[in-house]
């Protein structure tokens, strides 16, 4: 594939101000939602049909003190997006720069993309009866602007650019971190076939609520590669068989006594 673009989330620079969350809401004109205090500082509990990105908070006690791991969550903009492959309406496509975008007019809200996504990202919006997710602000970047969340980020934890350059940067950053954070790693290079959103994590992905190695479910690949393309032909086959029988039974019985003294339509 040609050069794709995405952004790097350097979680070691994120202070969880949630400016990106607000910027995303504002740019996409998404209504605010009531939330309840559940004992965590994470104010927005999960992605919803009206929330395309959140900062997830993960608290651990280490060496007698509380440690926080923050991770921005949104669509990962996979290099080989499963959501796009399964969408029966072909509502999801990849832009020239690699953003995975959804066409609202084509989407029928079947929610299959949500079930197929290895990162469990797309969310259903019952009011519009559509599935929703981050678009990597494709309309903005097409005009040379930064994604709204990247633009809003005050610490430089978010950086937009060419994937290969960001990947090199991320690796360099991990090299610098590894002395203090032996588990530091780059997330998104290989996961689910590689994603355009890359992360620098200071510790194992599990600590950030990420799956180590998210896989596309076999139920999905079976549907995708075998059932959907080939199974419907069975119907054509039995229909053709019936038409064949309609004629062959009549041809073979011409002039003969059909069904022992009965009329043909007996």
């Amino acid at each position, binding site marked *: 594939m040609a050069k794709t673009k995405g952004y790097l989330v350097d979680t070691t620079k994120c202070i969880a101000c949630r400016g990106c969350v607000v910027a995303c809401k504002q740019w996409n004109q998404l209504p605010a939602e009531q939330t309840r205090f559940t004992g965590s500082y994470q104010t927005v509990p999960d992605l919803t049909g009206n929330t395309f990105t959140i900062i997830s908070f993960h608290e651990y006690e280490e060496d007698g003190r509380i440690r926080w791991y923050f991770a921005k969550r949104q669509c990962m903009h996979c290099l080989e997006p499963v959501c796009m492959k399964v969408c029966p309406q072909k509502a999801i496509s990849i832009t020239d720069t690699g953003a995975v975008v959804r066409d609202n007019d084509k989407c029928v809200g079947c929610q299959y993309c949500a079930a197929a996504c290895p990162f469990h990202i797309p969310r259903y919006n019952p009011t519009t009866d559509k599935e929703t997710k981050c678009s990597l602000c494709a309309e903005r970047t097409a005009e040379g602007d930064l994604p709204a969340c990247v633009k809003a980020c005050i610490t430089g934890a978010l950086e937009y650019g060419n994937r290969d350059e960001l990947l090199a940067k991320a690796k360099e950053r991990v090299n610098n971190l590894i002395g203090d954070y032996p588990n530091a790693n780059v997330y998104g290079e290989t996961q689910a076939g590689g994603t355009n959103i890359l992360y620098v994590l200071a510790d194992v992905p599990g600590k950030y609520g990420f799956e180590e190695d998210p896989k596309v479910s076999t139920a999905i690949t079976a549907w995708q590669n075998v059932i959907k393309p080939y199974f419907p032909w069975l119907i054509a086959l039995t229909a053709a068989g*019936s038409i064949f029988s309609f004629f062959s039974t009549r041809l073979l019985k011409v002039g003969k006594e059909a069904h022992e003294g009965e009329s043909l339509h007996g």
Partner: protein
Amino acid sequence: MAEEKRILKCSTGARMVHWSHTICWFILLLTGLVMFSGWFDWLKPVFGGTNGANLIHRIFALVFVAVPLIGLVLKPRSFIGWMKEAAKWGKDEIKFMMMFPLDFIGIKVHMPPQDRINAGQKFNSFFFPIIGFFIALSGFVMWFAESFPLWMVRLAYPVHDICWILGTAQLCFHAYLGSLHPGSGEAFWAMFGDGKVRASWAKHHHTKWYEQVCGKE
């Protein structure tokens, strides 16, 4: 032909369930196809767009499930009787199935005597309810996806699709064999008419049953 004796093959209850399921199946099939593939976009306006198709699909899904349940509650004995009939398999049934392909293409064969429902109909008596059960179950999981674990939702899609495809494929055979296949006209009008068939037809196509009802000659 003089007025001939006619005997009851399909009870009113059976005919009503069969009828309403026929209608449900086609409506569910068409509204489902709108969601299954972009090939059927031209169907969208018929159902008032995808939202309309979605809604109709769900309403008829409920009817699809309700109809046999109502039948089961009102007439549990005839349901059990039907299942018992369908479960009775012997040499005659196996022979019927083996010779059936020849009859299907029009080669004259002498079929072994059959019960009220022949071996093929016995097969369908299990095939369609099982298919219907899994369609309903997987559909339920897809409808309330948020309340089920992800692996179940992921599995529900292939199950739903395999079942409706197998069901519709078999339905092509079933619809043809039950109507336009030589010798089937009588059974067709039994299912879609008053439930009765001519005694002489029954004697020829469902000999064992005829002998039970009318006695051996």
